[in-house]
């Protein structure tokens, strides 16, 4: 008899649950498009073209650099929030938690719009200051620069960092931190020498995610960066694939991007493994802090900053959705007409259909991505060593492949296997599932890794098979991770546009698509209304998810 004895067939088959869909839904279309593009036609290989230009290296360098800066900034801004969400009990925490997910769902075009409305040369901020100090020229030129990119990335990601790290912190055993205090370490020292290292798995996990986001970011870079000076690989892929129609080049770029992503993923997974030190025999006892006097003031400042960075652009956007001009340059008046218009425009209402479609896609995506991500997380956390890390990386790769390329791959595949295909909702949902499940995997595996191995073992000795154990012990314990993952999947699906555009039927419109069209027709006020509607829908859904997932059995409620 050798090691890895008693693993039932069930457990072995479980490998297939995440693997088969990943292969069919991701690796197959990807290889089809890559093979197609790379088999090459006339002329030099796209790789030669790619690497013979210094521009390529500038783009790669800039991509890595902006992602790094964005990640660090997001983490620094997010950590205090993580503490608030994880450690402090206050009223409205649940709502705040749901709110942290909003930036995430916003299609980047809407974020860009919100940023322009708030931070722009003629934005709320500038106009307010100009009005207050009677200035002629806008005092802040924030947009169309490197810092604008970082600001927008931080806007997207620091609430995410706060949320991810916070939910880990919530269940994190504070025993060691207390021990450090009794050994003479002050709160800061304790934080940096004990708490922070303990949080590293979550921090790396969040950092990996954020890094990838920023790595893949393109609308923000495109619009707020101010032009080709700041170009990322993803932007180049988008240009090559969708505009220059240079599929070879797009594929080559995608290969480069995927390779870099793979390395990054592998590194973060490895760092995460390295950083997690499970200690046998430690039950987490939750320490919930109450805020007092002067501390409250400091937190007030933090929240003010949050409001400035996150809430105000969004509020400006929502605000604008209730405003209208009497004439082009006339005074502003309050109105609900944009909302009314959203649902009463010609024929069967476009926005209504968009809302219906977006919600349907998002729900179905959640239904697909949850089990897939969960199975992937389960399988990868149980497997150890390099092989485990490799599988985990392989399963997370969809996160690092441009959805443009993926969409094209799908399209090719469908043309190959279903020649009569002409756009379908199933394909859209499948693409959304593939794009989103790695996030579920990330969110879930962080909480899965934290479960003391003796818990499932205890269940086994009590007579529960692996599945039963999973459903009665592990699943309830990773609920917060699941809810987080579901929120991600929902949000990403609500905001996805590239794959949808390629795969959906012509008459299938989603909220982001409708937004694009509204903005394309420079109907900004109506776009703001639809954006506000999107935000509202997402918050409602998050709250619903939180409520469904978090309420009933949470042992550590206060």
């Amino acid at each position, binding site marked *: 008899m050798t090691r890895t004895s008693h693993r039932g067939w069930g457990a072995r088959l479980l490998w297939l649950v995440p693997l088969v869909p990943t292969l069919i839904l991701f690796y197959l279309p990807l290889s089809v498009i890559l093979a197609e593009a790379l088999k090459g036609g006339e002329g030099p290989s796209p790789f030669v073209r790619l690497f013979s*230009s210094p*521009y390529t290296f500038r783009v790669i360098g800039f991509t890595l650099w902006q992602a790094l800066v964005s990640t660090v900034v997001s983490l620094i801004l997010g950590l205090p929030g993580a503490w608030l969400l994880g450690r402090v009990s206050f009223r409205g925490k649940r709502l705040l938690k749901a709110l942290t997910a909003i930036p995430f769902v916003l299609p980047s075009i809407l974020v860009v719009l919100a940023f*322009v409305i708030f931070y722009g040369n003629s934005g709320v901020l500038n106009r307010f200051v100009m009005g207050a100090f009677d200035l002629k020229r806008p005092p802040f030129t924030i*947009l*169309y620069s490197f810092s604008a990119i970082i600001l927008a990335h931080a806007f997207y990601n620091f609430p995410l960092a706060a949320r991810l790290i916070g939910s880990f912190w919530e269940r994190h055993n504070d025993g060691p931190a207390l021990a450090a205090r009794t050994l003479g370490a002050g709160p800061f020292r304790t934080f940096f020498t004990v708490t922070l290292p303990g949080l590293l798995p979550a921090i790396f996990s969040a950092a990996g995610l954020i890094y990838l986001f920023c790595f893949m970011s393109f609308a923000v870079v495109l619009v707020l960066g101010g032009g*080709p000076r700041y170009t990322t690989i993803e932007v180049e892929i988008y240009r090559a694939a*969708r505009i220059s*129609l240079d599929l070879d080049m797009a594929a080559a770029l995608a290969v480069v991007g995927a390779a870099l992503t793979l390395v990054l993923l592998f590194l973060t997974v490895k760092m995460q493994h390295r950083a997690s030190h499970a200690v046998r025999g430690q039950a987490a006892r939750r320490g919930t802090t109450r805020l007092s006097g002067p501390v409250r003031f400091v937190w007030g400042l933090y929240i003010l900053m949050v409001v400035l960075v996150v809430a105000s652009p969004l509020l400006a956007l929502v605000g604008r959705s209730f405003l209208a001009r009497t004439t082009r*340059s006339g005074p502003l008046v309050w109105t609900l007409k944009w909302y009314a218009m959203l649902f009463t425009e010609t024929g069967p209402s476009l926005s209504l259909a968009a809302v219906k479609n977006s919600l349907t896609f998002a729900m179905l995506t959640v239904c697909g991505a949850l089990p897939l991500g969960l199975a992937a997380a389960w399988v990868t956390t149980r497997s150890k060593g390099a092989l485990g890390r490799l599988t985990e990386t392989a399963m997370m790769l969809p996160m690092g492949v441009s959805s443009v390329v993926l969409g094209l791959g799908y399209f090719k595949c469908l043309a190959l296997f279903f020649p009569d295909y002409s756009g379908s909702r199933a394909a859209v949902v499948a693409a959304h599932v593939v794009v989103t499940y790695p996030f579920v995997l990330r969110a879930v595996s962080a909480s899965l890794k934290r479960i003391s191995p003796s818990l499932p073992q205890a269940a086994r000795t009590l007579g529960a098979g692996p599945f039963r154990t999973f459903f009665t012990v592990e699943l309830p314990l990773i609920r917060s991770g699941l809810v987080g993952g579901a929120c991600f999947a929902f949000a990403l699906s609500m905001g996805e546009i590239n794959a949808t555009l390629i795969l959906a039927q012509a008459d299938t419109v989603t909220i982001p698509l409708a937004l694009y069209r509204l903005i394309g027709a420079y109907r*900004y006020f109506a776009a703001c209304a639809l954006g506000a509607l999107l935000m509202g829908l997402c918050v409602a859904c998050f709250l619903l998810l939180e409520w469904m997932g978090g309420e009933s059995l949470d042992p550590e409620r206060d």
Partner: protein
Amino acid sequence: ASEKNNEKLVIYTYDSFASEWGLAPKVIPSFEKMTGIKVELVSVGSSGQVLQRAMLEKDHPKADVVIGIDNNLLAKAKKAGVLSAYRSKGINRVPESLRFDPEFQVTPYDYGYFAMIYDSEVVKTPPKSLEDLTSERFKKSVILMDPRTSGPGLGFLLWTVSAYGDDFATYWKRLTPSILTITDSWSSGYGLFTNGEAPVVLSYSSSPVYHVAFEKTDRYKAAAFKEGHYMQIEGAGILKGAPHRKAAEAFIDFMLSETFQKEIALTNIMFPANSATVLPESFSHAVKPEKNLQLSPVEIMNEGEGWIATWVDTVSK
């Protein structure tokens, strides 16, 4: 491909054409009523993406007609060999100068001139030439589009090429301080402009028409440049192996008909290709330049990539 169902027609077009504020909702129903053909309109993003989609499906075309192939894209479309020729009778009413494809793989339906639009409330003395734009007073004041991703963006690059020849790169170098941002699409750039982000934007000389016609303001004006204005001609074509060839031909004919052409002016804010079309009153605000510039498709095909590469290098430093 065989004639499957003559009662149907599949069209690929760019977003703004298909959107409910675009041309499609105004014209498609009358085409359907007229011919009894059911039109399936597929909107696939920008005009570049229309062509791409056609190229992807080259072996099994699903669409019959593609709309949005302009004079700058023509070369690429021909190289891909996805289109087939059709000479519509209506082409006779289109001036010779607009028939940009002599083989009639693409049929022109409207045209316009690229121009700088300025906010007359901010810019008191409008720029009079491309060179004017480089002046200090326009520092961070101009919104341009990326030629790799946007039709107007490519148009402006070609404009500078036709004005400066091989020296266009040094012009761009001089222009850089004036650029506030380079957007990927016309809509985002123009949106920023109307939002007040910058007082000057690259658009069409016909753009002020929109503001006059729908917003009753002449605040936004087109600047006439002494170098002349680069021209864009938009066209449609029938795909090789189109499943519904007959219907496709009928649609191309329809595009040149009066029903279609009279909508272009106020819906697409462009000049209709059919010279017989009566333009609305507001078109007096559209500048029709004395001198118009255009590069030949062959030249664009041969040099286009090199120009773009030079451009990228210049602006990305």
